[in-house]
């Protein structure tokens, strides 16, 4: 019998639920956490696997994470942004392992009393996570695979 490795790491407090997991992601879980009486605006972003990259057919993506650091980095990003935007609840989930076409690799969601804070927070949080979280995506085609790079910048090392 072949075993399947399931891994999950979570960081929670009153405000945040941040999870890195090999399980499929679920928007309802985000909604259950962020829907509260003091908030009138909820913003949710989902990143899903596309079936094409330029002209190549993508079969699926595979995500690898430095989980212990990724969770800390995402917490840092959320804390930084929450200092500038009045979000009362935050939910971030990132999937690891294989993510098929149309499946969700990341959910970033937040709620605020008035919509503008949640909307801007979520957009900036996605940008920052893609820039800084130690997570890597491998794109699989019929004829091979490629490690993707979010930023075409060189590293200091």
């Amino acid at each position: 019998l072949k075993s399947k490795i399931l891994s999950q790491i979570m960081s929670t407090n009153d405000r945040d639920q941040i999870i890195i997991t090999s399980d499929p992601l679920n928007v309802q879980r985000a909604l259950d956490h962020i829907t509260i009486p003091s908030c009138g605006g909820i913003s949710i972003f989902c990143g899903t696997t596309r079936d094409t990259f330029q002209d190549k057919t993508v079969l699926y993506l595979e995500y690898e994470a430095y989980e212990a650091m990724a969770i800390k980095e995402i917490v840092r990003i959320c804390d930084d942004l929450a200092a500038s935007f009045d979000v009362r609840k935050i939910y971030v989930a990132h999937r690891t392992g294989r993510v098929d076409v149309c499946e969700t690799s990341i959910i970033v969601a937040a709620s605020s009393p008035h919509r503008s804070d949640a909307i801007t927070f979520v957009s900036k949080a996605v940008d920052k996570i893609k820039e800084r979280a130690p997570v890597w995506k491998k794109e699989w085609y019929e004829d091979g695979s490629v490690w993707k790079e979010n930023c075409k910048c060189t590293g200091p090392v």
Partner: protein
Amino acid sequence: MPVVTVLYFARCREITGKVQEKVLLPETVSLDNILTELAKVHPALETLRGKLTVAHNQAYLEGSVQLQSTDEIALIPPVSGG
């Protein structure tokens, strides 16, 4: 000189064939010397020079740091999460 846990991810993992190992490193490491030190163990890591960053105890390394044997170092290839 401390023996420190070094973690390899993505392309680094494929190149070294390892997810982690203990490596004898200088007491002080910085962005300037860390790759040279690790390339002594895995010369093929040189192919990634100019593309990597480094984490020390699960935070991005800026400048230099005094290592202890309980520390964790990771080479960070260009990220592509989210």
